[in-house]
């Protein structure tokens, strides 16, 4: 129930942002509209609260940006130089993340980082298969994923 409400508010805000009119009437209209949309699409789902997680979200984003820049530079170097430095692998990373949202976010952030690509999640949701371009040591890579993205993400989500 609560998550629905949040979703509703969120959509109302997006609406207002999209239309660019921050008037009361526009909020009311956006609220009704997103209410309708949610009504159309929602099946029973349970969501945790979003409120306490704002600081963690910011922290995570900063971490992500750092990773992004670091990896981009690495890739850029490789792309612009003639020699190829790649050591690609496909690695199955065992997951601690459980819910679909957790897994999806994790996978997406990994993909957004240059040099790595989430290929698929096993059907039992226990393993995330990642294609990575610069892996010297398999174990170390798994460790970096689990301690990096996954831990931080789960901190926020749980």
């Amino acid at each position: 129930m609560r998550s629905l409400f949040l979703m509703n508010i969120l959509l109302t805000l997006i609406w207002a942002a999209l239309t660019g009119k921050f008037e009361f009437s526009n909020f009311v209209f956006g609220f009704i509209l997103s209410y309708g949309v949610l009504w159309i699409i929602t099946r029973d789902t349970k969501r945790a609260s979003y409120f306490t997680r704002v600081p963690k979200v910011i922290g995570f984003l900063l971490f992500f940006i750092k990773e992004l820049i670091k990896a981009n530079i690495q890739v850029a170097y490789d792309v612009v130089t003639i020699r190829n430095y790649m050591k690609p692998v496909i690695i199955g990373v065992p997951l601690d993340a459980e819910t679909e949202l957790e897994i999806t976010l994790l996978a997406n952030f990994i993909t957004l980082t240059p040099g790595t690509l989430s290929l698929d999640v096993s059907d039992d949701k226990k393993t995330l298969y990642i294609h990575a371009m610069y892996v010297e040591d398999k174990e170390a890579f798994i460790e970096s994923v689990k301690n990096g993205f996954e831990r931080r993400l789960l901190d926020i989500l749980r």
Partner: protein
Amino acid sequence: MNTIILKTASKYLLPLLLLFSIFVLLRGHYLPGGGFVGGLIAAIAFVLHAFANGLENTQQLMRIHPGFLMPVGLLISAISGMAPMLLNKPFMTGLWKSDPVPVIGSLGSALFFDIGVYLVVIGATLTILFTISETR
């Protein structure tokens, strides 16, 4: 396709896109957009959902057959076109509410007409795509 990543993403994308489609529909009279594009975006939203979750789930979500939207949309458009005839004006003569309405702007029969277009486009596009997807 059995991928939770897409499934999860589509769950959030659907409302976002529907909202976006309505946004595009409503502002069409002032800026690029309108019933067609709006309807197409809404249709795409459902198509994406269907790709991720399977057709049955999407249809369940929609509750009605998309084809039903076509006569509904046509009816809305036709009525908005015929309403002026009651006032003895030609078919599709624009009728406008004198004061602008918040958010939407001037409220007129043209808007209802565009809503009709929007619904027909959703209905037709989805009918086509869904029928193909479910036919082997």
